[in-house]
């Protein structure tokens, strides 16, 4: 099995897995009863999903700049989603409405 | 640098540089009043406005002397890739009218927009002068544009200059009026943009001259012209899209109302003319123009009736604008019904003449109403008995403007109506004659409601809050006299209007 085939399989598996996690997160967002559990489903599942998609895409892009860009995007999304879910959670904690 | 594909001799038409000046001058005004706003603004503005008069005269002179349209290719990039500015007779006349009214408004602008030596810039002084220049650059861009998307940007400039002028006094009523105006204007420009997209998708150019050569009747053209006309009608406040206009125009300060009513609404009308006469050369459908004419007739009747019912002077003048805008749209059926090219010329001249004489008359009227309101502190018509004896110059100016709107000889308004009537007779469309005459009667009625108490003898003279500046009265009078003169020297402007017209009815010619 050549390295190329192996990379192809990695991409297919990782991207499909990532898409599955996104789907699961979205289902959670729609089906879970209140804001905190929705937040939980969304952030957890989406971060894993995004990570998997990044891993799947890394072998597809030119090294080093495009790959670095992908990694930076991933890290930024992680930070942003962590902070924004923190902000939403804190707002709830302080007694905002849960709708 | 001569770009490949550009023809150098055309790329920078030396005499066309004056067109660039008509855009650069107000832009410089915007930047200067944005950066060094404060007590120097008014003096700087008056200098620039005076230069603007010279530039406008230069354009008119160039068009008149050469006998054909002036053009200037921006950046040397020829259409269809680049953008061309073009001034034909219509543009030259409208640019000149704009320059004159701008200058008058600049001189007239009341003390609340001036900054005293010891005071810092105020919100109103800052906004007013920038917006004044903005209207100027917007109108010039509308009149010079020969590219549909360039005209879209110009239309948006008009919107962004006009809406804040409406709400400059900051009261809840004007905020409401401004928001409603903005929403109407946005629908209008987005529909216009849609039509532009349809035309580009079908013909691959935005340049009006090229488009008129390539355009063929069909669903796409029909649809794009419909949406563009609907959008522009909403921006022009053509009946039944007129509801936004009266509160917006009557709520603004008088200097701003004068600009809005005399110039701003003519911008979108002018683009309508461009589309129907220049893009759709020879394709105009008689039935479709009848609808436009009917909307104009509706405006004349509804605007006139509503003006009759008003008790506030500024609202009455604003409703009269609704009615007067209706006359502009009678030119479309009259031109489409023409069998010979001179008939088209007649209809077009009538419409443009109405645009010009109404601009002067309405600017004078709003400014006169502003002087009265400043002096007595309100504009309730019933309580203005005897104002004519106390402010004779203002009342005289208002009276001349009113006579022009009614269409009494020898004013510009009379000459307009005469042109409209002869176009109706020569094309056999008698129904527009009825409308024009009814409109004149209605105008007579609502103007009589103002003038009659104004000239009646009052038992007790009105108490003035503040004295009226003689200089400001004279500015108003001069504008009114322009409206009067339009009826007396019709020859030259009529010929000037025709310069650069690619005539016109391909369909009408055999």
């Amino acid at each position, binding site marked *: 099995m050549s390295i190329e085939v192996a990379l192809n399989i990695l991409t297919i598996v990782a991207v499909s897995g990532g898409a599955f996690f996104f789907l699961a997160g979205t289902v959670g967002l729609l089906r879970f009863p209140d804001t905190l559990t929705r937040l939980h489903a969304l952030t957890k599942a989406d971060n894993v999903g995004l990570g998997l998609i990044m891993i799947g895409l890394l072998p597809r892009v030119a090294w080093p700049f495009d790959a670095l860009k992908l990694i*930076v995007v991933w890290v*930024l999304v992680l*930070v*942003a989603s962590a*902070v924004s879910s*923190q*902000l939403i959670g804190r707002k709830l904690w302080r007694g905002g409405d849960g709708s | *640098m001569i*770009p*490949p*594909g550009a023809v*150098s001799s055309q790329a*920078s038409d030396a005499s066309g*540089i004056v067109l*660039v000046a008509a855009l*650069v001058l107000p*832009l410089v005004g*915007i*930047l200067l009043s*944005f*950066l060094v706003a404060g007590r120097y603004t008014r003096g700087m503005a008056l200098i620039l406005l005076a230069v603007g008069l010279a530039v406008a005269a230069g354009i008119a002179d160039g068009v008149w002397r050469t006998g054909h349209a002036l053009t*200037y290719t*921006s*950046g*040397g*990039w020829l259409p*269809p*890739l*680049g*953008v061309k500015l073009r001034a034909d007779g219509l543009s030259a006349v409208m640019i000149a009218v704009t320059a004159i009214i701008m200058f008058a408004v600049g001189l007239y602008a009341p003390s609340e927009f001036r900054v005293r030596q010891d005071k*810092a*810039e*105020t*919100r109103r002084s*800052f*906004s007013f002068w*920038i*917006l004044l220049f*903005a209207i100027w*650059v917007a109108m010039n861009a509308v009149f010079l544009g020969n590219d549909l*998307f*360039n005209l879209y*940007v110009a239309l*948006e*400039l008009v919107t*962004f*200059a006009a*809406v*804040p002028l409406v*709400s*400059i006094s*900051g009261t809840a009523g004007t*905020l409401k009026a401004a928001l409603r105006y903005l929403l109407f204007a946005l629908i209008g420009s987005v529909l216009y943009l849609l039509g532009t997209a349809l035309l580009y*998708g*079908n013909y*691959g*150019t935005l340049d009006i001259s090229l488009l008129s050569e390539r355009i063929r009747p069909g*669903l*796409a053209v029909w*649809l794009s012209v419909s949406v563009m006309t609907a959008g522009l009608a909403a921006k022009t406040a053509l009946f039944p899209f007129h509801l936004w206009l009266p509160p917006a125009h009557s709520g603004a300060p008088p200097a701003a109302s004068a600009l809005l009513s005399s110039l701003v609404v003519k911008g979108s009308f002018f683009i309508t003319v461009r589309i129907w006469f220049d893009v759709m050369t020879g394709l105009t459908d008689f039935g479709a123009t009848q609808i436009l004419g009917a909307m104009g007739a509706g405006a004349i009747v509804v605007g006139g009736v509503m003006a009759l019912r008003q008790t506030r002077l500024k609202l009455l003048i604003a409703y009269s604008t609704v009615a007067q805008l209706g006359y502009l749209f009678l030119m479309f059926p009259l031109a489409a019904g023409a069998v010979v090219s001179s008939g088209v010329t007649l209809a077009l001249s009538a419409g443009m003449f109405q645009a010009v004489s109404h601009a002067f008359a309405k600017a004078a009227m709003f400014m006169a109403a502003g002087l009265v309101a400043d002096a007595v502190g309100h504009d309730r018509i019933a309580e203005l008995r005897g104002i004519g004896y106390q402010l004779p110059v203002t009342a005289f100016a208002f009276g001349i403007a009113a006579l022009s709107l009614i269409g009494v000889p020898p004013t510009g308004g009379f000459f307009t109506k005469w042109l409209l009537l002869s176009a109706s007779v020569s094309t056999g469309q008698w129904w527009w004659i009825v409308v024009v005459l009814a409109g004149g009667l209605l105008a007579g009625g609502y103007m009589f409601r103002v003038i009659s108490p104004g000239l009646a003898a009052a038992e007790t003279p009105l108490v003035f809050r503040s004295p009226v500046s003689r200089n400001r009265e004279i500015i108003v009078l001069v504008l009114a006299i322009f409206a009067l003169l339009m009826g007396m020297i019709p020859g030259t402007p009529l010929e000037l209007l025709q310069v650069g017209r690619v005539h016109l009815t391909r369909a009408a010619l055999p």
Partner: protein
Amino acid sequence: MTIGVGFSVALGLLILAVAVFTIGTRDSFAAVVAFVVYGLLLSLGWMNLYCPDVALTEAAVGGGVTGALLLNACARVRSEKTSDFKKSPRWIGRGMAGLLCLALSSGLVAVVILLPNPAPTLAPEATRSLSATGLGNPVTAVLMAYRALDTMLEKVVLLLALVGVWSLASDRFWGGRATFGHLPEPDRPLIFLTRVLAPVGIIAGIYLFWVGADAPGGAFAGGAILSAIWILVFFAGLSVVPAVGSLGLRIVLSIGIIFFLAAGVAGISMAAGFLAYPEGFAKPIIVVIEVAMTLSIGATLGLLVAGPPGQSLKP
């Protein structure tokens, strides 16, 4: 190609569905959130049409900054967040409007299907003249050279919008600072995020503008990112919004137009005419104008979101 077509069908349906939700939902806050999603989906649509420059601008301006603006507005008019159908026209009016819009949509569908083949295009002309501008990205060439007049006037529109927003201030606050309405006390995580994101965002903004000459990007996308970072800095309380009376601020806001206009007028004597660039110097001049424009756009977009001054300088 069929997978591509399938993707487009799904994307188109999704965009339409989100648009229907945006328009149909009674909760205005939900509508605004849906609108942001709509903007992001549209960016995907733009990528699907191979228009990366537009996709970037749409994501940054259409979805991003517009979303921030509308969310802020929505939060401030919370008391009337549900759409009030009682005030809307009766069903006859709605039916008429519906029929009219349906007719328009059907007409447009017909026009789309009947668009001429081969499609008229200016791509050959735009490519042929590209060498004279020294640029590699034809979209940037259109914006900065072929149709530079439009771009310059559009910068004026942007400035006028800001003047219009400022003119809505109360007289007593004139010369003061914008307040975004009333910002809540910043949370520590937000401050942390801003500290992390600000340098990255500034680099990203400059990078986007810089590559715009030859690759997708440009002054609009770059400026929008800079403005987003700026807004974040205000939200985190790391800096105050500059006062509207500040001359420095006004120079930054207008410098794009000033450079554009100056280069344009200089072209009259030094090149082929107004807004023409001298041979061989086109690219450096364009880059300098774009630097100024990126700054002005970033500042203007940020201040448009911040709103009119609502706080005077002297307490």
